[in-house]
């Protein structure tokens, strides 16, 4: 009794192990050694948080698909991101972190509602009806399709507009394509200037519906000394990489020439130039105070 069960289990265990190890030889598939290295770097929990079927699937995707970011592993956090980006040779998350950016300020532009929308609470559904309930058909609809798509809880809706939490956004890009109006764009976190409107309408049509809409006047396109601003597909587009490469020599002339304050200084994302100046001034004052405290005036 004891003997038969020990022997039969022993045999089965042995058989399984032999078959498996033989199979791992016979059916060996040439794999990129980097895949295994990345697998080792990943936590190995197969949690699926990255959107792939497991750590191995994600490792393969990172190696083979140049568009897949190295920073998708939310379980591993920053350490893993660094390791993965090194192993996969991707800068993502390392050199030039990006962030999702909403190209719409319909609240500042006082965009009116064409009609009260009562349908299913989804931007896609709302957008299908008469180009959406907003008077501008390129606005952020605010029903949060991107919020649902965000795997990192980095987005939320405030006053009918989506807000991106810069601390949580890892630039995975999940939100970009779900927006029916293509309001979201991925930009470098250290981008200096960005267009705050995504309209493709002509001058008059924009002026009628929004006070903060881009009228596509082309002043910025013409004035940019680095020629990094272009008019593509009916909207203004800044080649951020080229803009950053050119550096601050242009003194952001595009921001100055914009008649409607559509192009704004970013630095860093979410803080306008003025606020930044104020912060810098405050810092300088604090430094001065500290210096004073350390070296008290002998006369005092």
């Amino acid at each position, binding site marked *: *009794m*004891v003997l*038969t*069960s*020990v*022997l*039969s*289990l*022993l045999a*089965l*265990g*042995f058989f*399984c*192990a*032999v078959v*498996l*190890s033989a199979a*791992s*030889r016979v059916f060996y598939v040439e794999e990129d050694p980097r895949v295994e290295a990345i697998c080792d770097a990943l936590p190995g929990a197969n949690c699926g948080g990255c959107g792939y079927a497991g750590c191995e699937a994600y490792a393969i995707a990172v190696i083979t698909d140049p568009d897949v970011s190295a920073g998708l592993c939310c379980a591993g956090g920053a350490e893993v991101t660094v390791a993965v980006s090194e192993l996969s040779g991707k800068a993502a998350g390392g050199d030039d972190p990006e962030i999702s950016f909403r190209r719409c300020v319909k609240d500042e532009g006082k965009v009116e509602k064409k009609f009260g929308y009562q349908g299913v609470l989804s931007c896609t559904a709302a957008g299908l009806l008469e180009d959406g309930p907003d008077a501008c058909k390129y606005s952020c609809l605010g029903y949060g399709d991107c919020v649902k798509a965000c795997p990192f809880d980095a987005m939320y809706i405030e006053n009918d507009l989506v807000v991106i939490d810069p601390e949580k956004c890892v630039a995975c890009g999940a939100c970009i394509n779900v927006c029916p109006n293509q309001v979201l764009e991925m930009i470098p976190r250290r981008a200096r200037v960005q267009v705050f409107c995504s309209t493709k309408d002509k001058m008059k049509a924009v002026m009628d519906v929004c006070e903060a809409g881009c009228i596509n006047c082309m002043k910025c396109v013409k004035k940019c000394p680095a020629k990094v601003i272009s008019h593509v597909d009916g909207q203004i587009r800044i080649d951020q990489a080229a803009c950053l490469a050119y550096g601050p020599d242009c003194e952001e002339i595009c921001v100055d020439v914009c008649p409607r304050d559509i192009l704004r200084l970013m630095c860093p994302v979410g803080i306008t130039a003025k606020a930044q100046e104020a912060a810098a001034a405050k810092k300088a004052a604090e430094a001065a105070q500290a210096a004073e405290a350390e070296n008290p005036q002998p006369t005092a």
Partner: protein
Amino acid sequence: MREILKMIVVLTCISGISGFALSSLKQMTAPTIELQLLTFVQGPSLKQVLPDYTNDPVQERKKFTNPLTDKPVNVFPLKVDGELKAVAIEGFGGGYGDNIGVMVGFDLEDNKLVGIGITTMKETPGLGTRIAEPDFRAQFNGISESEAKLKSQGGVIDALSGATISSGGTVAAVQDAGKIYSALKADILEAFK
């Protein structure tokens, strides 16, 4: 190669150890398990077959080999004050859910049914489960095996309305037990006399 060897050795060892542990445990628990099985599956149904028996039929059971299937079958003697009243045998019939197990008591004198008790069933609660109720079971008391069929089949048993299948399963189980009884009757008489 080294790694593969390690894989094989580790997995084999773990399986072997678990096999050893489990078989030891099995041997330790085997007698208790059999007793529990009989007490909890067949025990309660014996009470339904003949409510006033005074012996311990589970302890006094005898094992026979069913000549029809070559599987072992338990026969329980039911005694009142030391006198053998009946023997109980379990039969099975296809019910609505799974097989219905029915314990059937046979009077050794005239081969009539003493009563039946349900051992296992997975019938629809409230419908099929009514086969376990005394009203339905009482129909089997004191009839002969050939009468223990549904009325539609030429017997005397009224099917439960809404639970024809469960009723049919019970009857089939009784017939099954009857076959075993007829086949084993000589041996049973021998063993319990």
